[in-house]
């Protein structure tokens, strides 16, 4: 077992496109590191460089104490699960799983024993003599996992291994993959563009955008303390409500369209940086769950017109509009963004038993203590 370290890793493809820009990442022994980000941000490229399938343009890649930049994949002692599984179609499940051992010239008996162990862990015993073409998507996914775990590698790499599964199976396999990884204890780099997978599986999550790591932290920290607008918008579903606000000259009130919120002294004290924005624009962020319906005594209130109500059983998602400018982060759900672009759309997560329907005018209580602030120019979060 070993840790993996990426030091200023850069990838420039033959067409001069820089897909990955000086990435630093450290994956500790046994750690489950998720790489997440929108399509084309360079996740697969990073993984392929670690695997040795793609040449590293510059930077240093270490596995354990060894610099492995110039080692071929087979000498790096890694295993990889591909998005489309990349099973060998002409081999049985057993042969697929045992292929790596066979290439490493292990004895027949040993191969058979290890393959049996792997199929037992993955519940594939009954399919061991089938060919991949005769398996369901979930079973193929397991075979791909089996091929990775049977070799007991020092690093696991997985590129969106669950993205071809249906929603229910995905939830199931999510837990299964985590369980297997913990059991084997090898450091894992797991690529996904699904932020639920990122949140639920990762010990830490690295959020990528355009070949740069935006932030790398434990999932809850990413959620609670995003470093910038992109991370704030990308992590969380539905994503954070982001509005352009105007700070009143005295720095005590925020103007959101025709409405206003007052900023208590304790918040201004906790974040002295905010003072610099007096009389200027600032971006505020509110998670959907921090917008409960306002009671009669609440004074920090935003009024919105309800457009749509989604009842999810455990919660009610209320889509509303206010007359402030919504901020379009370079992120998240593009369809959703397009749909509401320009309008002051937002989402609140409220008690499912509330009788709210489209067309209602609703008052939301704003939890100003959990409100987040971002600089409109740099998009950096203002925490201090």
């Amino acid at each position, binding site marked *: 077992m070993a840790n993996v370290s990426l030091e200023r890793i850069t990838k420039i493809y033959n067409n001069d496109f820089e897909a990955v820009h000086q990435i630093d990442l450290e994956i500790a022994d046994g750690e489950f590191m998720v790489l997440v980000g929108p399509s084309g941000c360079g996740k697969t490229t990073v993984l392929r460089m670690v695997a040795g399938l793609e040449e590293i343009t510059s930077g240093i890649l270490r596995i354990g104490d060894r610099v492995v930049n110039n080692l071929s994949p*087979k000498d790096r002692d890694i295993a990889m699960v*591909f998005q489309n599984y*990349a099973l060998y179609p002409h081999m049985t499940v057993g042969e697929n799983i045992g292929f790596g051992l066979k290439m490493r010239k292990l004895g027949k008996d040993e191969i058979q024993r290890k393959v049996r162990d792997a199929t037992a862990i993955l519940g594939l015993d009954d399919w061991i003599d089938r060919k991949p073409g005769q398996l369901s998507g979930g079973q193929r996914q397991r075979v791909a996992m089996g*091929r990775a775990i049977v070799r007991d590698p020092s690093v696991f790499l997985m590129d969106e291994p669950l993205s071809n599964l249906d929603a229910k199976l995905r939830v199931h396999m999510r837990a299964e993959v985590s369980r297997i990884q913990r059991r084997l204890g090898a450091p894992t780099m797991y690529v996904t563009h699904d932020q639920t997978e990122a949140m639920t599986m990762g010990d830490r999550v690295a959020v990528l955008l355009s070949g740069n790591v935006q932030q790398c932290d434990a999932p809850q920290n990413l959620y609670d303390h995003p470093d910038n607008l992109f991370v704030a918008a990308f992590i969380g579903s539905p994503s954070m409500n982001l509005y352009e606000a105007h700070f009143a000259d005295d720095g005590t009130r925020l103007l959101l369209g025709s409405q206003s919120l007052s900023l208590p002294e304790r918040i201004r004290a906790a974040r002295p940086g905010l003072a610099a924005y007096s009389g200027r624009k600032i971006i505020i962020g509110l998670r959907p769950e921090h917008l409960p319906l306002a009671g009669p005594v609440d004074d920090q209130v935003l009024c919105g017109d309800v457009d749509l109500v989604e009842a999810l059983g455990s919660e009610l998602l209320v889509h509303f509009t206010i007359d402030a400018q919504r901020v379009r982060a370079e992120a998240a759900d593009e369809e959703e963004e397009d749909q509401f672009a320009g309008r002051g759309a937002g989402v609140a997560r409220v008690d499912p038993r509330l009788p709210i329907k489209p067309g209602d005018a609703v008052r939301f209580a704003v939890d100003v203590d959990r409100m987040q602030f971002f600089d409109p120019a740099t998009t950096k979060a203002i925490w201090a």
Partner: protein
Amino acid sequence: MLASDRRLGYALVAPTVIVLVVITGYPLAYNLWNSFHHYVVTSGQPATFNGLANYARLFHGQSFLPALENTAGFTVVSVVLETAIGLALALALNRPFRGRGAVRAAVFIPWAVPTVVSGMLWKSMFDPQQGFVNYVLRVLHLPGGHVTWLANTGTAWGAILVADAWRNTPFMAILLLAGLQVIPSEIYEAARIDGATAWQSFRRITLPMLKPALMVALIFRTLSAFLIYDVVYAMTSGGPGSSTDVLSYLDWRAFLVQSDFGYGGAVAVFLIIVCLAIAAAYVRAFRVETVR
């Protein structure tokens, strides 16, 4: 499938089946009938039934067995040669490199040349005085610059093989390249990560996955090699003597020179049976599975 769909299906394939029966089935049947008769068209005599006499002539006559031996030998050598070179070409053309499209197109040009034309072309290339081959050998001061290639049995076969390979290897390469292109690159990457060397991944991934394409290519090439006719006709006319005689050329002479439709028919039936056997043997040997 619904019954009505099935009926529509039959109706749709019916015209093709009828055409096939008429243009393939009729000559086959006519040929088979001829082969059991004494029938020399130019003699003006009507065909008379003579049982297996034509078939007996195949094995007791002077020319059939040597021609069969030549044909079989040529088939084995040319198919092995063309498969090996074709596979190497296909593997090379399947790798990314600058100008690959142009090179691919260029490689396939010989295949677009009609066989008789390529035979004539190579005949002139192997001409002892004016030929390109000897010219090059002489200019480079290599031995063999004065060999009369087509006048000696061994060198004549060599020349025929070269001409045949020049024309047909591209065909082999096309089919195998198509087969290679359907193998996803991810599978090779998985194999690399699994620790396979280049040779292991060729042996364990490429070859098995190339099986269907290889089978089709081999059936095509083997059958057409077994039926070789035009290259021989153009280059040596079976000579020197009858040392490069082959079955199709012999059959051609039986029909068109001797007008012996009975004997010619028997040779043709023999060729058909061998071709069917070859195809069946390949299908059996490869046992291509329908599941992906």
